[in-house]
Every structure is written in C-alpha cells, then in structure tokens.
C-alpha cells in the first residue's frame, strides 16, 4: 500500500485509489493552463460541445453526480428544476467553503482552477446558463489569485467568452469574492450576497434558486467539487463514472479528516464504500488515533453533523446509511476526538461558531444559538446547574421541535434517531447550532454532570479546548447559589 504526499499540497494524501478531481495535484504547476492542457485539459469541454446541450445534461443525470456541498442533491436533477422557457438562467458557483472541518474546495481552487472552470463551462452549456459567477470565500487569497490567473489565461486562449472554441456557445465567468460570512454558504444567502446585500437566506418556498434565484431568475447553485467532477465525466462518459463507487453514490469524494489522528489529511476516496474505521485507522488514510489513544467521538460530516461514537465506525461513508444512523455526510469533513477530549468544551467551540455566524434573521437561531453558547460557557466554566442542562434541550426544542437526530449508543442503550429534523428557522444554521450541543449532551451527559457536581474541570483534559469561556464569565451570585442549593 502506498501513501503519497506532495510538498506543494500540504495535507493531501493519495495512494492506490482512483482520482477524478485530484489527478493533477501531483504536479507542482497544476494550476497553469500549460499543465492543464498537457493533462487532458478542456477535452471534457470539447466532448460536451460535440454533443447537444440535452445530451450533455442527460449524461450528467445518468452519472448521478451528487452535490458535494452538503445536501447531496444530484446535479443533473438540479439543473432540470428550472422552469420551462424562463430566461436568462445563471450559474452561481459556491466556493464559500467555511463549514467547520471542511477543506477541499479550497484545494480544488488553488491546485486545479482550470478543472473548475471547465466544469462551469460544461454546466452552462448543458443547462443554458448565460452567465456564471464564481463566488470564492473572501479569506482565501491564494484561491482567488489562482482562479483569477486561470480565468485570464482561459479567456485569452478562447475557452471562455464569445463563441467558445468556434461554437455558438458564449458565456462569461465572473470572479466574485465574499467577505467573511459562514451563512453565505447557504445558496439563497449566497444569491443575496451576490446581489450586493447582507447575506440573509431567503424563504423556500418561494425562493428556490432554480425557480427564483439571482435577480429573480432561475439560478443553479453548484458546489466547487461538484463542478470539478464534470470535466472527467464528459471525457470518460457516465458509464465509466458510475463504475467507481456505489449505485447510489457513484464517483469519488473529497474527505478531510482532522483532529486527534496520527496523519490528518484530505483524501479523495471511492464514494460509498470506505468506512469511517478505514478512514480513521487504516494506514492508507489517517493511521489511527494519535499516541494510540482511544477514540471517543467523531463528527462525520462537518460541524453541522450530529456526532458519532466508536459504535458507528463500521458505517460506510454513504449518505443514506449515515442519515439512517442519525447524522449526515454534509461536506465531507470528519473531526476526531480522542479520550482526552473535554467533550463539553469541544461542543462549546462549535456552539460559539454558530452563535457568531448566525445572520440574525430568524429569532430561534439568533437568540437560541447565543443562549446555547452562553449556557454551555457557564457549564464549561464550572458554574452550571442541572437546570442548565435541561435548558439546553429546551432551547434546542425552539429551534428544532420534536425528535432530534442522534446516533445509537450501546453504552447508553440508545436507539438512533434518523435524519432529518424539523426546524423553525429558514436555513440550517439554526439547527446546526443545536447539533453539537445535542450530540454531546445526549451521548456524554455524564461529562456535563461531572462539571456541575465538582464545579471544576475534568482532570483528564489534555487540551483545554477553549479559553474565552473559562475566563470570560464571572461567578455570578445566582449561579453559585443555585449550585450550592442544588448540591
């Protein structure tokens, strides 16, 4: 078994696995047009232009290219949701990658921008999209520069603009930067932001982007990795594409595994078959938990995904199975916690993230997310009460009424509650704020209780996870008294 890494792409590892989107990462100059053309570049576009738009669309539908941004909706089906005979239609590329733990679109933009551009062109051709906006996260300076250079090269070489490669196909790709807002990764917020507004999500219905999107016109919003698949797909055909992976999840997926593993990294894995145990323990991937510690818990799909414990290690990385087990694959990010982790403090880092990133449009998220963070801060700081723990669930119920998804636990005798949840907010930021709190409290309530009984930190904490919480909160008379009375 070989594990290969490249000094010019830190964190990326490959091996004896098929590579669809990362095949050029081996070249240091993978982002240049010269290298791209020398490695089958723009052949997918040429193949597409030899077909009718409908044929290209059918090929993508047949390949079942699942969206890689989070929701996992097939790209071909998404393109077909635009209303008949309504024009113009736009493509908005979602490169606002900021889900905690996620780290793939940035690499694809930095290391192979032409592959993304080619994917955009194929999508525009197939779905009749007359202008493309490539929205890159504001903080990704290198990705912006590499994509800008690639766009300039591609325009000059005739791959973008009027009458592309001598055909009737003409489209502009406009590079657009964000300016730091997690919620803008949500497609309707992305469109609001692109219209020059605060990035607040829009209510669906009626604002399904495919029907009423940018400037009120049909708009396809696709993730960077989704589009990056298209060049290979058109070069090799849907039949070759579906030979990789499973019937429900064909192709490959980029997965980032971070946290307490020996070799954290980004891997392009075969879709649907690789298990979490493979990813965390196999030498081909992360090679086990650091210092041979025990695995305590892991987040299977980015900060918004309910947590798993070692009970779920043998699940494959496949959307439906993971959904039935009480979580989601989201954007392909696994965060691993070993047995030294202070679980309430770890949950707090995510709760704080969502409280910070709430756009403020929906009350349950704006207020509830902040409440969750504050209560958790109090608990982590050792000033919480048993009432606080119940209150966390109560606040969560205002964001997501009813049963909330969580994993099964043999230790606790818990059955899994499958996805999805009900929600009182417009977008998923609100429920996502509740996810880490609910998971941690459901699966590791004893650790929260311990903080209350002892009013001190758990001694096994190898790394105190957050500082602001520990020092920011003074001991109020109320909370101290409540603990005193309660205990």
């Amino acid at each position, binding site marked *: 078994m070989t594990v290969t890494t490249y000094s010019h792409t830190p964190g990326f590892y490959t091996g004896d696995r098929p590579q669809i989107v990362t095949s050029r990462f081996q070249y240091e100059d993978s982002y240049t047009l010269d290298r791209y053309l020398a490695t089958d570049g723009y052949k997918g576009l040429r193949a597409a232009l030899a077909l009718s738009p409908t044929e290209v669309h059918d090929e993508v539908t047949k390949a079942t290219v699942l969206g890689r941004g989070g929701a996992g909706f097939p790209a071909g089906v998404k393109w077909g949701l*635009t209303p008949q005979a309504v024009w113009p239609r736009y493509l908005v590329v979602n490169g606002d990658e900021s889900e905690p733990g*996620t780290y793939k679109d940035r690499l694809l933009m930095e290391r192979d921008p032409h592959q993304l551009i080619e994917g955009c062109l194929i999508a525009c051709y197939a779905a009749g999209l007359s202008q493309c906006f490539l929205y890159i996260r504001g903080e990704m300076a290198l990705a912006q520069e590499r994509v800008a250079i690639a766009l300039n090269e591609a325009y000059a070489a005739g791959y973008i603009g009027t009458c592309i490669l001598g055909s009737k196909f003409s489209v502009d790709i406009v590079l657009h930067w964000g300016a730091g807002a997690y919620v803008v990764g949500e497609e309707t917020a992305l469109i609001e932001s692109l219209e020059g507004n605060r990035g607040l999500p829009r209510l669906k219905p009626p604002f399904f982007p495919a029907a009423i999107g940018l400037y009120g016109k049909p708009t396809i919003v696709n993730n960077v990795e989704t589009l990056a698949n298209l060049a290979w797909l058109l070069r090799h055909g849907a039949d070759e594409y579906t030979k990789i992976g499973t019937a429900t999840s064909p192709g490959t997926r980029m997965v980032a595994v971070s946290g307490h593993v020996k070799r954290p990294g980004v891997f392009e894995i075969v879709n649907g078959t690789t298990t979490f145990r493979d990813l965390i323990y196999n030498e081909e991937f992360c090679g086990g938990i650091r210092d041979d510690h025990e695995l305590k818990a892991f987040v299977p799909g980015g*900060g918004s995904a309910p947590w798993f414990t070692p009970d779920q290690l043998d699940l494959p990385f496949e959307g439906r199975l993971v959904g039935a087990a009480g979580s989601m694959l989201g954007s392909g990010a696994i965060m691993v916690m070993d047995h030294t982790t202070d679980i309430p403090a770890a949950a707090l880092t995510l709760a704080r993230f969502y409280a910070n990133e709430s756009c403020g449009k929906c009350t349950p998220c704006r207020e509830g997310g902040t409440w969750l963070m504050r209560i958790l801060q109090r608990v982590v700081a050792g000033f919480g009460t048993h009432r606080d723990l119940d209150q966390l669930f109560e606040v969560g119920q205002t964001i997501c009424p009813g049963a909330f998804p969580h994993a099964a636990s043999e230790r606790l005798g818990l059955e899994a509650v499958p996805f999805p949840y009900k929600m009182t907010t417009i977008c998923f930021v609100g429920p996502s704020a509740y996810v880490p709190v609910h998971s941690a409290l459901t699966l590791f309530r004893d650790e929260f209780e311990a903080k209350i009984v002892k009013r001190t930190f758990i001694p096994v904490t190898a790394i105190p996870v957050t500082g602001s919480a520990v020092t920011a909160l003074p001991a109020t008379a109320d909370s101290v008294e409540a603990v005193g009375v309660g205990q």
Partner: protein
Amino acid sequence: MSRLNEDNVRIALETIARYPKARSAMIPLLHLAQQQDGYVTNEAMAHIGELVGATSAEVFGTATFYEMFKFKPVGKYLINICATMSCALMGAEQLMHHAERRLGIKAGATTPDGLFTLEHAECQAACTEAPTLQANYRYRFHVTPATFDALIDDLANGRLDAEIPPHGTVARIRQRIPADRVVGPRSPDDVTTAPEWMAVAPTASGGGQ
C-alpha cells in the same frame, strides 16, 4: 483620499460592467476601498453608493454584515487565529495565549505601533493543518509558539513583504476580461429567449431542458 482614487474608480467601473446589475459589485468595491485605505471609510462607502446606485446607508448595511470589512484603522498585519473545533482540539487556545503575550495585546486589539491586530477567527478551511492562522489572509499551518514568533519578527522586519501585502489587499491579481472575448452582461429583464446554443437543439417541450 478617502473616496476611491482615479485608478480605483477605473477598476470599479470595470468591475461594475461585469454584472447585470451594478449593485452586485458592492462587495468587490468595498474590498477595493479597503485595499486603498486599509479600512472602509465613510467617504468610500458614500462613493460606492454613488457608483452602484445605492444609498450610503445601504452600502453601510451590506458592509457591516461581513467580518472582513473594518471601519476603523487596523494594524498593517491582521493576525487571525482559528479557534473552531479542529484547531481548538490541536491547541488553538494555547496559541492564542502565546500570541497575546508575544504581542502584548488581547485578541481584538492593535499593537501601539500599528503593526499588528490580533483576532479570533472561525474555521479557515485548513483543518488538517491545525492549528492555523492567517496573516492578512495568507495561511500559516501547524503554528507553534516558535513559528509564531518567527512570523511576527519576519513581518515586522519586512522580510515577508513579497508574500504578504499590507491589510486591505486580499487577492493581488484581478480578473481581466479582454474586450474581444467578453460576452457582456445583459439586464435580466431584457432577456426572454434561450441562449443561442440552446436554440440549436430544441427539445419537444421547447424549454431547452
């Protein structure tokens, strides 16, 4: 100096011309203003409003939503230390403590010499390389106290000027669309028919899908 200067107005007009509606250029123009002055001034926001057809209050409304825009001068170098889960698990808190001691300021503050502003940041999309920081949005991976100190020394002594521009400049390379290649945006309200290449292969339903 706080309105966009002549060169930047030219860039602004070029940028606006790429969008079907001028207002879409608001965030790129705010970045341009921040690049010019190191932060976004009230005068620049008023100027941007004139350029895109919005009131200065609307520009302010949009600008304040986004964390990257600063409305007061910040240090020449903005040091953002990631504090979200993966970095937190790998010691982001200790790194922040070290940074605060090294710079002699708390997170959110600027050093008296105006060189460094230190901030907590949320996930920077480099989770496997934790703990991470960005200096003016340029990454540093696996940051230790020693490499942090070296970075601060290098920045202070100008040794990284080639790689890390002063605060305000994010991407140093702009998109250029050649005049002979550009399709050009059209107002969404003016377009009612399918693009030309779709008309080549009409489908039975006539919608081009």
